[in-house]
């Protein structure tokens, strides 16, 4: 049974939470929390930078995860190298945390190509836009791992809105029935674009749904990276030991608009946003680390420098104009070459070479 109140290890004041709130999970070492804090600070700088570049028109769109760093980084950092991540469009900072370079992440949002990084190299599936569809891919990947005897787990992120989709239900059910090594991390950030959680679900918590599927569920303070990391680490280890899937709900908040083309003033109040601002996930762990003596000014300055370097790299990458080859349109549609595509490719090649064509008839009379 999920707990009634969210599991937390560090409270909103940066103080170790009361024992009865921890759900029995142990506080990660300060060294681990410092590493997570570093990644959060860098991720937020990246997020702010990319949002700015998007406002400047360098990117077509960017769904920000600002405010959700504890869920994004806490869960991603818990993955072992061999594990696979199945992310959504909002999880760019999770990709960053797993080592994907900014240009490889942002080529998607700049409009160069749908997915630019090498999935196998990073063990990350392409970011999906249709909701909850990737959860089934995560279950399938995990099922194959189980059948092949690999000690590999998969982790997929979903939003609160995505849990309304049929594919989410099917993924939870298949994972439970097949006992696949899969961890579902639901980031309940309060809104699906403009629609508040109350209009998505009547469930007390989304984690409660785990009961119906026959898997463990955890309701976690999604702005407490210590709790997210501890709970996800436990779920992943459980999965790799052959104990099946786990559903985790992280209660958090999307501080920014859905994307740059959204206007959140139409559906939520400034007061509400401000109430969440004081629950900031980075400030919380920062306060804890300082109080523990694990974070000093010099380290903070180093991390800030590192974040600025990444921001500069990001700006530089987005200032470059990529050279896209229109003929690449035809390159990756099929593994088996098709003469009909070769004809259309030849048509475009001729058009690009400046030859005049009377129609778009790609076949011609034979």
């Amino acid at each position: 049974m999920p707990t009634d109140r969210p599991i937390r290890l560090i409270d909103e004041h940066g103080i170790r939470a009361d024992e009865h709130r921890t759900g029995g999970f142990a506080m990660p070492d300060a060294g681990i929390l410092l590493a997570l804090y570093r990644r959060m600070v860098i991720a937020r700088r990246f997020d702010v930078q990319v949002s700015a570049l998007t406002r400047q028109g360098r990117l077509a769109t960017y769904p920000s995860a600002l405010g959700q760093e504890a869920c994004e980084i806490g869960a991603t950092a818990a993955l072992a190298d061999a594990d696979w991540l199945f992310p959504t469009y909002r999880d760019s900072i999770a990709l960053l945390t797993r080592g994907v370079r900014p240009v490889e992440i942002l080529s998607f949002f700049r409009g160069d190509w749908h997915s630019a990084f090498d999935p196998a190299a990073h063990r990350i599936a392409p970011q999906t836009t249709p909701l909850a569809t990737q959860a089934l891919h995560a279950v399938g990947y995990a099922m194959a791992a189980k059948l092949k005897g690999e000690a590999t787990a998969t982790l997929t992120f979903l939003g609160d809105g995505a849990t309304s989709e049929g594919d989410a239900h099917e993924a939870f059910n298949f994972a439970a029935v097949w006992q696949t090594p899969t961890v579902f991390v639901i980031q309940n950030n309060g809104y699906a674009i403009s629609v508040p959680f109350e209009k998505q679900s009547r469930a007390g918590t989304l984690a409660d749904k785990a009961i119906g599927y026959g898997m463990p569920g955890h309701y976690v303070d999604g702005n407490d990276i210590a709790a997210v990391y501890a709970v996800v680490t436990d779920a992943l280890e459980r999965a790799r030991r052959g104990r099946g899937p786990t559903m985790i709900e992280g209660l958090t908040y999307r501080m920014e608009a859905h994307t740059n083309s959204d206007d959140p003033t139409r559906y939520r109040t400034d007061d509400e946003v401000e109430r969440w601002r004081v629950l900031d996930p980075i400030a919380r762990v920062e306060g804890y680390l300082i109080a523990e003596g694990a974070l000093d000014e010099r380290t903070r300055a180093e991390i800030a420098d590192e974040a600025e370097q990444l921001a500069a790299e990001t700006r530089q990458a987005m200032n470059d104009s990529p050279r896209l080859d229109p003929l690449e349109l035809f390159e990756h549609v099929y593994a088996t070459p098709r003469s009909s595509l070769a004809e259309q490719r030849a048509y475009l090649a001729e058009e690009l070479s400046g030859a005049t064509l009377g129609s778009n008839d790609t076949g011609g009379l034979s």
Partner: protein
Amino acid sequence: MTIAHHTDAPTETTAQAPASRTLAGALGAALADAMSEDAGVVVFGEDVGPLGGVFRVTDGLAARFGDERVWDSPLAEAGIVGTAIGMAMNGLRPVVELQFDAFSYPAFEQITSHLAKMRNRTRGRVTLPVVIRIPYAGGIGGVEHHSDSSEAYWTHTPGLTVVTPSNPVDGYWMLRQAIASDDPVIFLEPKSRYWMKEPVPLDRPPAALDRARVIRTGTDVTLLAYGPTVKTALDAAELAALEDLSIEVIDLRSLSPFDDETVGASVRKTSRAAVIHEAAQFGGYGAEVAARVTERNFFHLAAPILRITGFDVPYPSPKLEEFYLPTAERVLAALDTWEW
């Protein structure tokens, strides 16, 4: 829990006379042989385990290969296709069954937005060798949602290969070729032909997966058919021969890609063509065939290409399907509308 490497002997050796098989039996033999050769081939779907599928295509596979290679999934088609995608990303070659044509629609998003596009989205880095078997079309007295011809949904989706056998020999070989393909394949099995029986030689495939076959030669008209309507076309050709009309019949076999070469050669010879399918006419696969063949062969054509198809109505109830389905008589009546 690991996949053992099976070393079973193939279904039969080449020295023997080829055994007669039904289409359903040939498909099952193809699955068994593919699974014997490649430990990565797994079969799952609704009722494909101990029951052997509602059409018994997977009969005996679970007993022979075990429930780690052949298993019953929960009853959810998006889940079946979505998890097959994940398995293929992890190196398996899943062959899944979607029990009836209209039951494939819950999987539409997984097929069109993910299975078909993953290779393209990842610039060729992710290959998804998934075969989706779909028993399709009518003629068996099925109640509603059990007789659709949904091929146009799939052929209109770049990234998919769409094939349909019309006989046991093609059933065996095309399924072997589909499983061996690195592209996702929609494998449409005509229900009304499942019980057709003929000798199935297992020494070599009759044609590549992407080729049409001329299965009856003629000089006056080319009939283009696939799946369940190949028999309709052959019946029409028999009847027409009584009236000294020489009909060439082409079994398209591969709907996407389309074999322009084989079809073009025939049409340029006969200068008349008609396409036959069970699906509704408007926006159907026959429209693409008629347009494509016309564009490429216009000056060789003596008449417009005809479509002999189902009506533009939902597939009818069992007692009315005989009025809906294209028949040999309807084919001949259509050919009579041309000026000769």
